């Protein structure tokens, strides 16, 4: 039973982190935009669920109460009862949440990247981190958005699934969403658009010299990436059946995704999958065994710090010894159109 739980935990975190890491791969791995504010887009996804969809449902159902925190509690019990009778309602709310999250993510992302018009890479990274921190603090301390540090409750969109199957259902749902995101991102990035993003990463002057508007490309790219990251935030909130701003801390949602990206290999999605998978395995095992590890090794610090120290060291080791990650980025040379052109060429030369 405990092992089954562990497995589901790994699957769930793998799905959520895969979505976030893929979104970062679009922006940083491909386009070279150092988005140190990834956590913000994830938080926006949570706000879409706890702050926006909650309010929409409260209005629609005419639920009364004082403040968003209390009213959300009533909303949750009312809607859960409805969903357990009517699965379609649950699935409808799920889709609504993901759509609104993606939309809000895209808009925030587009606005968020505007300072890049004037800033160099390193300054941009710091600026994005700062903006992200500010919004994190605002939503943590202002209790009227998503309940601040108290948080808000959220209806369980899978309330129709019997309790003991709920974890399994969410894990499967997570894998499904992650798979769709993977297919979307893969198709996007193996197209000329992905090639152009890589070109922008390698040398902006070339891209400018060949007529592409760098700022527009950046805006589109960060809007897309943020929309995807927001989907992860929304899904995570739906699974947790509550939203608390403090869970969207930069270490978990910016630093760790960067680590997974660097570990697996930037600029290729298979590398990202491998990076996320290895990371999640280590993370979940650490959560389970950190106290044993501490006492066995007689570590002179709290077990909680083990994770931070270990991942920090891992990051340094990767940057130093394996800057290309586990799977190295390869040039894209065997797409159907290129193969076709090669075949035709071979025919022409043999025909001569």
């Amino acid at each position, binding site marked *: 039973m405990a092992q089954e739980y562990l497995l589901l935990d790994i699957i769930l975190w793998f799905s959520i982190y895969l979505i976030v890491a893929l979104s970062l791969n679009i922006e940083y791995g491909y386009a070279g935009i150092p988005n140190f504010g990834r956590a913000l887009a994830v938080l926006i996804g949570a706000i879409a669920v706890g702050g926006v969809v909650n309010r929409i449902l409260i209005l629609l159902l005419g639920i009364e109460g004082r403040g968003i925190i209390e009213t959300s509690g009533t909303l949750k019990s009312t809607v859960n009862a409805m969903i357990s009778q009517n699965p379609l309602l649950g699935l409808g709310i799920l889709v609504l949440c993901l759509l609104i999250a993606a939309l809000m993510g895209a808009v925030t992302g587009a606005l968020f990247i505007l300072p890049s018009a004037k800033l160099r890479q390193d300054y941009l990274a710091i600026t994005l981190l700062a903006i992200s921190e500010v919004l994190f603090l605002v939503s943590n301390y202002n209790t009227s958005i998503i309940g601040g540090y108290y948080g808000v409750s959220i209806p369980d969109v899978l309330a129709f699934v019997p309790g003991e199957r709920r974890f399994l259902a969410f894990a499967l749902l997570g894998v499904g969403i992650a798979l769709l995101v993977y297919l979307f991102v893969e198709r996007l990035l193996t197209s000329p658009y992905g090639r*152009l993003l*890589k070109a922008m990463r390698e040398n902006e002057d*070339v891209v400018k010299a060949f007529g592409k508007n760098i700022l527009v490309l950046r805006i589109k790219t960060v809007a897309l990436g943020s929309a995807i990251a927001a989907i992860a935030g929304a899904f995570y909130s739906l699974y947790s059946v509550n939203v608390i701003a403090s869970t969207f801390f930069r270490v978990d949602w910016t630093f760790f995704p960067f680590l997974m990206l660097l570990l697996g290999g930037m600029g290729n999605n298979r590398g990202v999958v491998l990076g996320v998978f290895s990371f999640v395995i280590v993370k979940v095992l650490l959560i389970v065994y950190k106290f044993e590890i501490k006492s066995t090794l007689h570590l002179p610090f709290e077990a909680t710090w083990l994770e931070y120290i270990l991942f920090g060291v891992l990051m340094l080791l990767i940057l130093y010894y394996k800057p290309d990650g586990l799977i190295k980025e390869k*040039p894209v*040379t065997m797409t159907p159109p290129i193969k076709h052109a090669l075949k035709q060429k071979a025919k022409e030369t043999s025909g001569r």
Partner: protein
Amino acid sequence: MEYGNSQPTPSSGASALVTQRLTKNFGGLRALDGVSIDVAKGSITLVIGPNGSGKTTLINVVTGFLSADDGKVVFEGRDITNKPPHEIFQMGVVRTFQNPHPLKKLAVLENLLIAEPGYGESVLQSFTRRWVDKEERLVKKAFDILNFLGIEHLWDEQAMNLSGGQLRLLEIGRALMCDAKLIIMDEPIAGVAPALSHSILKKLKELTKSGISFLIVEHRLDIILDYVDWVYVMANGRIVAEGKSDEILKNPKVIEVYLGAQG
């Protein structure tokens, strides 16, 4: 975003590119000091001058990579002064860089494919697969150019593995990919073998017949002079002489500038 056909073509004898008293300062240094040149349509116009005379700066200002402090840049009758580089490209002006700018992790072929105007900018098109047909045409064209430059066998090599000379060819190839109206090249044949240099210049000469104009900065006068129609000589940010290629080397000012720089 249509490329290059933004204006009716002027009749022959017209100018492709005109600069009027262009001035550019770097702090206290005046890198361009009232530079006026005229690139006739369908010509190969050469700019020579010792190192540091301002040739690359001239290219950067004309193509929008640097802003002009004073003066004007006119392309096919339209004022393009201080327009952003991508807009200048969209009007039909492409440039190469003096030190090659490869997209290092991309394959040689991919380095050429990004040159296509407007190509790859649309997110929606990535999903419609409408790009596949276009890609096939572009790949074919890219292979032809690589073949001509003699680096076809390197098509799937990452650009970072190319030698200095091969990178220069890649730089030229990319400029030839997009059917620009004005091609500006900064020392295109430096380090390229003489035989290949001649065939490249012959190719450029051929392209002028279809109305394409060239503005070229180059030091290797022994190779290039036979191909060019008009020569400007720069020194200290100014045009100090101009003339036909067979006369320019006899100009005492030119001899002074070059000997002065060498001696």
